[in-house]
């Protein structure tokens, strides 16, 4: 808007200038014309009138001279002069007439007329004079000549008056036109001045704009250079150049901003800050600053004040002036460094912009360096205890092995596993468990030599590297020392408790030449100590069996099987005598990359021994219930889903709550869940288990005795067990072959007894048509086995259910040769 107003203003001024110039020019032109007229007419006319006056007088004078003398030879010149003057009068009159001034035309004519009259009279008189008739001449002169001359003079005066009037009028006109033109000229001059002013202002603005542009260009160039330097420094940071070198670059960059300025940067936190770089400073001052670390980390201003005061004092000794110290802090507020600039004393340096720029870059560099150090530390250390982790430990074992090889020494790797740590963790919580681990770490570090190393390689597993051993027995002394540290009780929350440990030892080079072998063998030896009851150590022996190694492997792998999603369920249908689906049993499968497909018979006992069974059992129950609920929602007719449970799952007394919560979560009616428990488990903890079974049965959950007939219970106990179903162990069914009368009698007895107690009977491991037919003859209610269905995935079962094909038909279609017995489900 302002821009448009300016344009309109300028346009008005220019218009005013044009109009003023036109008016002024016109006025000047008129004035010039009037002046020219004044000169041409009035001045020229006045001159001519003056000439006329002179010539008339001259003519008269010559005439009178001619009258005065007597000799014709003397008279004639005067006569000629008089006539010449008269002739000039005539010529002047002609010129005056040529001016064509109307106002004096009449005066000119009058004068000409009177002058001609006089001329005539004078010629007559001159003729008389020349004739020598002087008397007559005098008479004529007095009568005619003189009056005629007087009249001519009168006419001449009238002519002169006319010219004066005309001159005055012209003068007035010139004045008027000049006055008129002054206004126009004044407007023109004013407008011109304004335009000049605007031009000057515009020129000044343009110059200022150009200067600003030049300044901006300079700023841009400086900013570009700064950005390039910043990019270079950030590249150094990203490529993990040495921190001191990066900080030197930053200080050099600041020095380029002010060549006389130097700087010092300290990096490090919590009182560990060290001078990283001191550039562009006298060597002595840099050395002095090195001995002057910043105060310990914190926000207290007192320390900073003291530091600043001391810096200034140091700088002053070298005729330098110190800037206020600039703290470099992490995002968390923790100080990670300090920055200070120095410049020659007495020179006013604007510290703050340079300090801010340097601080920003230095913070990035130091924070990145610290972060990298932390990441590197975390990658190689245990976060809880701060001990090296397995990776770093392996590296140290490698280095120690090489050194031992060079010096002919031995190295021991000791694997330590806490006894009953899991119980502490489960009963007192993870926090207490973590405290125990930290205390163990401290005790291990405290009892070892400086050259030895301790690492935490698992939950409650530690490893120790003992170097520079002369013989294997030295390692046993180390192990004994370690065990001795466990003699003192541990403070667990409000209680004190003793904690044991099992240790396994492997020796380089006897038991392995690489870290992995040494660690594995130490682990095996530890397992051996654990099998021996714990609280002791064992040296690795090559006689340790492969089965033990597999056991160790499975135990280690099983701990993380759930996390790694290695467990899954398969379902095996249970059919009644009519081939109708009665239930599906959920069967746990474990597929481990190292151990391969592991049988439940192999890993379930390990899970029970290592205390993993509650978490695995919970996962199985939840997964099976979720599948059953899905089938229910899809409208499939799956009356029951059977899940195997371990007696250990009842140990904490919370199994009932767990099952109830899972059923609620999944939305499965309790009556559609059947829990299978082994006869042995029931017998071991009969009272506690039975109470929880009773509670669950009250909810509607069904129970079955699994593997019935293999345990030690007497048949008389069967009537006291709170179950709904008896599953005859596959070993009885396997023998149901023609001629095997004993087994048939046993099975018949179990079936009869169960039926008498009102229990359903399931035959497991039905693998042949003969077995099926015989079981049907014996009155077995439900059959389960490969002859009917192999275990299958949930998806395969869903397809089967979707086809609505009689489930028994599949089995009947199978040729006899394919009915191969395989590994039993859990």
């Amino acid at each position, binding site marked *: 808007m302002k821009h448009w107003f300016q344009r309109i203003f300028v346009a008005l001024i220019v218009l005013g200038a044009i109009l003023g110039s036109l008016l002024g020019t016109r006025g000047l032109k008129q004035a010039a014309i009037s002046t020219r007229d004044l000169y041409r007419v009035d001045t020229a006319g006045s001159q001519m009138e003056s000439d006329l006056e002179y010539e008339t007088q001259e003519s008269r004078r010559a005439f009178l001279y001619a009258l005065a003398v007597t000799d*014709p*030879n003397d008279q*004639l010149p005067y*006569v*000629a002069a008089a*006539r010449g003057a008269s002739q000039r009068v005539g010529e002047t009159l002609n010129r005056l007439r040529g001016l064509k001034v109307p106002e004096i035309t009449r005066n000119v004519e009058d004068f000409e007329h009177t002058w001609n009259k006089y001329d005539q009279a004078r*010629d007559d008189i*001159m*003729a008389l004079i*020349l*004739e*020598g008739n002087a008397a007559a001449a005098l008479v004529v002169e007095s009568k005619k000549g003189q009056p005629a001359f007087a009249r001519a003079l009168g006419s001449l005066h009238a002519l002169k008056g006319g010219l004066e009037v005309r001159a005055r009028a012209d003068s007035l006109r010139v004045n008027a036109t000049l006055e008129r033109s002054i206004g126009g000229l004044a407007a023109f001059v004013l407008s011109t001045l304004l335009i000049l002013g605007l031009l000057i202002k515009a020129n000044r603005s343009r110059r200022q704009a150009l200067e600003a542009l030049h300044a901006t260009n300079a700023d841009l160039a400086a900013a570009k250079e700064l950005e390039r330097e910043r990019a270079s420094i950030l590249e150094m940071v990203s490529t993990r150049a040495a921190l001191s070198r990066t900080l030197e670059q930053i200080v050099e960059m600041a020095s380029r901003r002010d060549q006389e300025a130097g700087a010092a940067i300290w990096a490090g936190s919590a009182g560990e800050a060290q001078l990283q770089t001191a550039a562009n400073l006298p060597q002595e001052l840099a050395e002095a600053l090195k001995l002057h670390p910043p105060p310990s980390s914190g926000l207290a201003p007192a320390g900073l004040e003291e530091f600043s005061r001391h810096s200034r004092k140091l700088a002053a000794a070298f005729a330098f002036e110190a800037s206020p110290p600039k703290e470099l802090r992490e995002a968390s507020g923790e100080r990670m460094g300090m920055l200070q600039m120095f410049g020659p004393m007495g020179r006013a340096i604007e510290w703050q912009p340079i300090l801010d720029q340097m601080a920003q870059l230095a913070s990035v560099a130091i924070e990145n360096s610290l972060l990298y150090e932390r990441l590197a530390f975390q990658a190689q250390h245990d976060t809880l205890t701060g001990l090296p982790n397995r990776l770093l430990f392996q590296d140290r074992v490698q280095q120690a092995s090489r050194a031992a090889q060079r010096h002919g020494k031995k190295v021991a790797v000791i694997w330590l596993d806490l006894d009953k740590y899991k119980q502490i963790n489960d009963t007192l919580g993870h926090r207490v468990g973590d405290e125990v681990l930290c205390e163990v770490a401290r005790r291990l570090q405290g009892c070892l030599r400086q050259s030895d190393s301790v690492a935490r390689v698992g939950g409650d597993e530690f490893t120790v590297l003992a170097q520079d051993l002369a013989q294997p027995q030295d390692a046993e002394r180390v192990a004994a020392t370690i065990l001795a540290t466990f003699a003192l009780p541990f403070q667990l929350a409000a209680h004190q408790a003793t904690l044991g440990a099992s240790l396994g030892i492997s020796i380089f080079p006897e038991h392995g030449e690489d870290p992995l072998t040494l660690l594995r063998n130490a682990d095996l030896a530890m397992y051996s100590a654990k099998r021996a009851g714990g609280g002791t150590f064992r040296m690795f022996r090559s006689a340790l069996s492969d089965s033990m190694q597999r056991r160790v492997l499975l135990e280690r792998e099983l701990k993380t099987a759930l996390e790694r999603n290695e467990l899954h369920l398969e379902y095996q249908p249970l059919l009644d005598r009519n081939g109708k689906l009665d239930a599906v049993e959920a069967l746990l499968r474990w597929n481990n990359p190292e151990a391969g497909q592991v049988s439940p018979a192999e890993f379930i006992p390990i899970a029970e021994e290592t205390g993993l069974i509650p978490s695995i059992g919970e996962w199985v129950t939840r997964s099976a219930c979720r599948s059953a609920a899905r089938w229910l929602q899809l409208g499939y007719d799956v009356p029951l889903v059977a899940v195997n449970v371990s007696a250990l799952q009842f140990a904490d007394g919370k199994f009932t709550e767990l099952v109830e919560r899972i059923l609620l979560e999944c939305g499965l009616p309790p009556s559609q869940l059947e829990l299978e428990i082994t006869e042995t488990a029931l017998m071991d903890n009969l009272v506690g288990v039975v109470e929880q079974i009773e509670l669950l049965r009250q909810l509607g959950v069904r129970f079955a005795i699994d593997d019935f007939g293999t345990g030690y219970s007497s048949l008389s106990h069967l009537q006291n067990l709170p179950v709904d179903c008896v599953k005859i162990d596959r070993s009885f069914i396997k023998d149901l072959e023609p001629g095997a009368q004993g087994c048939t009698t046993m099975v018949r007895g179990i079936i009869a007894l169960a039926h008498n107690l009102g229990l359903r009977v399931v035959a497991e491991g039905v693998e042949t048509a003969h077995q099926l037919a015989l079981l049907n003859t014996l009155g077995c209610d439900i059959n389960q086995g490969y002859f009917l269905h192999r275990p299958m995935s949930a998806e395969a079962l869903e397809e089967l259910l979707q086809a609505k094909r009689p489930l028994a038909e599949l089995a009947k279609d199978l040729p006899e040769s394919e009915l191969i017995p395989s590994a039993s489900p859990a």
Partner: protein
Amino acid sequence: MIAALLAAPMPHYAADPAGGFAAVVHQSNPTHNLRFGDMLSMFEGASRGWANGSRVVLVERDAGSAPFRYLMGHLLNTTPGEYKRSLQNIEYRGDLPVSIKVLNSDAAACQFVFNVPSAIAIVEAGSLGSRACSGIQVLRIDGKLPGEEGYRLK
């Protein structure tokens, strides 16, 4: 005037100029052609008026000049003394004196004739081309102008 004319020394005259002489009068003089005898009569003082009645004023050159000698020797066939006495006789007879103006150059003579309407002068024909003689009338003598065949003033 006559005395001054007569008292002037008489120079020895050279031969007549080849161009001859001319009789000149005022431009306004109505007489344009003059008989030779009438012209001599005017210079002798016998005829003293023009046709318009105005009195003849004789203009003669000074005594040593060619026109004067031509007048004396060829036209009037007399001497300056004789001529003087004949003019004085006219005054003695009681007649009006002959008006004679003696001028010392042809230019002055012409100028005089220019200013006096009744004047007649004899000047050298060669002087007629001068500026002084431009505004006057050259008389035909017996119908002839100077330079024409049969012109008698040569």
